[in-house]
């Protein structure tokens, strides 16, 4: 074996270690028996995993994150499905501009989105914290919803809608009878992608969170500033496995990767 032939396998191993390593360290740390967040873990116990469920603020912020992920994604889909339909089926003037504006939250750093929302929406209009978070998460998920739903609409021939109309359906009826059933996979995928994106979102939520109203990731940061025990690692592990589980199930039943 020459050095040259080892180069690629070694690089590959380093990349994998770099990507997966931190995750493995966190998972290992969550089973620690010690009092502080440390690696390598001291002993083995499930006490920190058990503690996660007893922290009051975690429960509240988990509920908030869940509400934002489900509600924000649902709202993004309600806006995003008709928008995707219009973008894919009609030659509209300025369609490209709309496409770009809709994708903006992906490209613009979260910090800037958060600051802008705070400075120009939340403060001047005195928007409540929960509503502000809800609007922000809807806007953040919208690009994913439009992108994924558009992809599945582009794969669907538009003449089936005309066929439905000629068989007696109205235009709107045709949308619900023959378009929606055929993009269900795309909508489910968009929902899952949106849910995970919203749930893991930090920078925007950081700006908009306020007294008593926090998302789970923001709450975890706040918790770590005060208490440096392994329960945050335990919670991170639980969330990571939840995300992996959702994506795995989605891939298994929907062919998730086709749409994303």
């Amino acid at each position, binding site marked *: 074996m020459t050095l040259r032939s080892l180069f690629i396998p070694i690089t590959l191993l380093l990349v994998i270690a770099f990507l997966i390593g931190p995750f493995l360290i966190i998972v290992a740390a969550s089973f620690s028996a010690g009092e502080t967040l440390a690696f390598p873990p001291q002993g083995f116990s499930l006490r920190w995993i058990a503690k996660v469920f007893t922290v009051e603020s975690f429960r509240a912020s988990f509920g908030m994150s869940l509400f934002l992920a489900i509600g924000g994604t649902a709202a993004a889909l309600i806006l995003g499905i008709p928008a995707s339909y219009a973008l894919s089926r009609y030659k509209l003037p300025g369609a490209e501009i709309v496409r770009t504006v809709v994708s903006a939250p992906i490209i613009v750093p979260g910090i800037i989105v958060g600051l802008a929302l705070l400075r120009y929406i939340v403060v001047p209009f005195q928007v409540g914290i929960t509503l502000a978070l809800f609007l922000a998460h809807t806007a953040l998920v919208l690009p994913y919803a439009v992108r994924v739903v558009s992809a599945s609409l582009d794969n669907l*021939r538009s*003449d*089936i809608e*005309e*066929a439905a*109309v*000629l*068989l*007696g359906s*109205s235009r709107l009826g045709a949308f619900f009878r023959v378009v929606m059933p055929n993009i269900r996979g795309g909508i489910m995928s968009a929902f899952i992608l949106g849910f995970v994106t919203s749930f893991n979102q930090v920078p925007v939520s950081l700006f908009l969170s306020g007294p008593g109203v926090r998302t789970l990731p923001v709450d975890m940061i706040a918790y770590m500033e005060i208490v440096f025990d392994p329960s945050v690692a335990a919670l991170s592990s639980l969330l990571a496995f939840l995300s992996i589980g959702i994506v795995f199930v989605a891939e298994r039943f929907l062919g998730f990767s086709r749409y994303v």
Partner: protein
Amino acid sequence: MSDASYLSLEKLTLAYGDSVAVANLDLNIRKGELIALLGPSGCGKTTTMRAIAGLLAVKSGHVRLDGADITRVPANKRAVGLMFQSYALFPHLSVYENVAFGLKLKGMRGPELETKVQSGLKSVGLSTFANRKPAELSGGQQQRVALARSMVMEPKVLLLDEPLSNLDARLRLEMRTELQRVQKETGVTMIFVTHDQAEALALADRIVVMKSGKIEQIGSPEDIYNRPTSSFVADFVGFENIFPLENGKMKTSAGLIDLSGKPPSAAGLAWRPRMVSLGTGPFQGTVRGTSFAGDSREYLLDTSLGPIKAEVEASQPAHALGADLFFDLPPEKAAPLLRFV
């Protein structure tokens, strides 16, 4: 409404934005007729079909069907069926549900629906495929589902977009027979759009040849095939040697040539390659190309008149490339053209 105008298009003008696709089209179609709209792509045939279906708004003029003006009637209330070129079956529904789709929208339920769908499927020979999804069928089977789906609605007019173009040669014959049988059994008025003259000749009662949004010629398949009235139609149906007439003389690259026995009022003359007689005649040409087509052999000749295509029985002795041949364009065989475009 007279019998001759079950479906009539009156001064129909259709446009996409500012570009006019069909201008001032007049066409009367009898009940139960099988009409072909024939023409090259961009001639307006598909646009006309979409306007009859109500999928395209009419700019000016009228569409009348069975005595009623349907120009402004929405597509879903017209009782006009359309079999799409891509078939446009609903991929998420079974064959049975595809055929039942329109009937259910009409409010049909229970045993009546069941009977109707089953008989629709039976009539296209697909009874045993009722539970399959469209993706599990061959192209030919999908097309028959599309036909059944339109026909169970008992449309007043059935439109067919390039009905044979996606099928291989064997299925083509099968589908052609099928369409003619359906037409005979139900008496439905059928209009199909095609760019393939062979398809139009084989299937239609009457052919409407279109060019640049206008009707070029209407006639029986025999009329269109044997008596094209314009150079465009002649060229489209295979008259490959076409010359304009000027002051009664044929205009060629060798100048004006006097032919005896030509019709006096014609604007041009056209010969099929088969009508050119090789071996004797007043003209001379050199063989530039030759191709063997089984029963016959085709020659491309370089002549002082311009290029000439001739076709002779394959049993005749073959001529080599570069051979000099005499030939004739017999005036009595030529199709006289009224318009030269």
